[in-house]
């Protein structure tokens, strides 16, 4: 897994790339929580994720819950087919706010 983060409006965009599995999901979790610690809204870009397992999904769930507690916005953008399949299996596709891209999300926020 690789990752990088950038700013887009009031959001931090954390882009995860490659396979998010048990070997790196602790790392992904750490990145997500760090981003939220800075007090900014967070979008996780999953467009380059080729695989994500339940431990990766668990990191996203934890980020979503942490953001809620901090009154921050949390969303997923550009969810790849591989990632969407797993989110659907976990019935989380209706739980997470999901947008096709960062730009769409920002414009949706108005």
């Amino acid at each position: 897994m690789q990752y990088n983060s950038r700013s887009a409006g009031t959001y931090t965009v954390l882009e995860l790339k490659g396979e998010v599995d048990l070997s790196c999901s602790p790392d992904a979790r750490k990145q997500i929580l760090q981003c939220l610690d800075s007090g900014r809204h967070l979008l996780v870009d999953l467009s380059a994720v080729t695989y994500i397992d339940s431990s990766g999904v668990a990191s996203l769930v934890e980020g979503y819950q942490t953001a809620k507690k901090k009154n921050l916005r949390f969303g997923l953008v550009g969810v790849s087919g591989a990632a969407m399949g797993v989110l659907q299996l976990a019935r989380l596709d209706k739980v997470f706010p999901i947008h096709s891209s960062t730009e769409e999300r920002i414009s949706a926020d108005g």
Partner: protein
Amino acid sequence: MNSTPDVYALLERGEVYSLEDQLELLADVTQSFAESLEIEATLRNAIEKFMQYMDAEAASIFLLDTDADPLNPELVCRACAGPVDISGLRLPGDKGIIGKTVMSRTCQIVRDVSKDPDFAGQVDAGTGFVTRSILCTPLIVRQKCIGALELINKRGGDGLFDDRARHLLGALASSAALAIHNARMADRLVEQERMRKELELAREIQMHLLPEPGGDGFPVVGMNVPAREVSGDFYDFLKRDDGLIYFSLADVSGKGMNAALLMAKVSSLLHHLAREISDPGELLARVNTEVCESISHGMFVTIVAGFLDPAKRMIELANAGHQPPLLHHVDGSFEEIAATAPPLGVVAACAFPVTTLKLDDSSLYIFTDGVTESLDESNSPLGVDGFIKLVRDAEFGPATRRLQGIVRELRKPVVSQRDDITLMVIETDGDRRPDAMKTQQIFALHFRAEPERLGPVRALVKRAAQSFGCSEALADKLVIAVNEACMNVIQHAYRGDSSGEVSLEVRTNGTQVIFRLEDQADPIDLQGVKPRDLDELRPGGLGVHFIREIMDHSEMGHLEHMRGNYLEMRKAID
């Protein structure tokens, strides 16, 4: 030994009644002992000769009877000669002159019984016979005293027995003792032979009642491996003119001839009635009535009997108190068909409810408790779960070969098989299905329980899934399920101990792909493994849900013969 003097030494010293007579007597008696195993008649004949030759008024042989009470054996008169027939007379083993002879294992000469405190005198009192003098010598063989030989009242002379008489009687006694011993051994052999013959006959009856194999593709296959002791297991099947196939498999309580005869009766009755009656409930009710009238107390028959309609691929059966048959579904699951009535021979007026099964491509396994009570390598009974595992692991292919494989496994760990092993499998289109049942290994690999190994495992699984025709979408799903399964092993079974080893085997039978994972971790709590409620939003606990959602069938358990757990998952290829 004091009781067996050297007769030839006596002869040489001339201390004999008459050399020729004595030799002749010894030769005669020894010869008749050697020739005959009819010990009672030989003893009667011998004792008569002893009495005449030694000039006594009466003679008898008493033997210790240890059967009734081994601690206080009685002496029983087995042969006698003289004016009073005392054969069958029982005396206490430690009383009287005979008792003293046996207890002390020495010859007793009593010249005047009226002065001997040991003389019991009960025979005289009852018969009017007057005992004056006694010569009594122990019968000893292999250092064991088995009884005594007694002469009463020397005729002529001074009416007393002398040392020469004592020596000669000792010689005769040792010959008699040996003959009795041999006869007893022979009796035992004859008895053993009789029992062996009986068992052989019972087994022969049993084997003759089993049907000939139905041939290639016949939907019913049975197998019976008798234990050393004959029991009353049987199975039967026959094809009726209307196309229905009757089948039955039963276990008659008890062992040996009784069980074999009852089995023969029940089996023949069923075989006969099954041509006329098509309702398995009615069939069993008819036989039950018959059996209840004649059965000996405490015997009963557990049985599964029914009819297969090969055209409709349906089975109707009734189960009278028998071990529940197992229906092995195509998706790999097993269903128990429970008994619906008590065994035959227990309740005279009894209904036997019929169970209807849609067989289709499933296989029905019927078996006796000899199968589930077989011992595994750790000496514990196999149980139904163990049998299920054997069925699963059996070589795939035609039913006969699978049953042979199962029987081979059943008998492997057992030193001496305790009970009959009898089992039957019913499946339609058996000849067309071998391909569906045959599995082929795609790959097997072992890897350390480290998260870093998951990536390569996923790549292998995906390639394998595509290689046997799975769509891209299905291959991705299979990868997810297998990955989650491996994660569970790493995280929960090994609890993060990365030195543990995981093995993954992938097989296919052409219509399904089968994944089997094994670990060597401590047995996990199987009850604790369940999918969580998805409405509850929390990280973790999704893996089991993923597996159940993706796979058609998954099953986990503890390994049979070693520490560890397994997870087997099946999915139909799209």
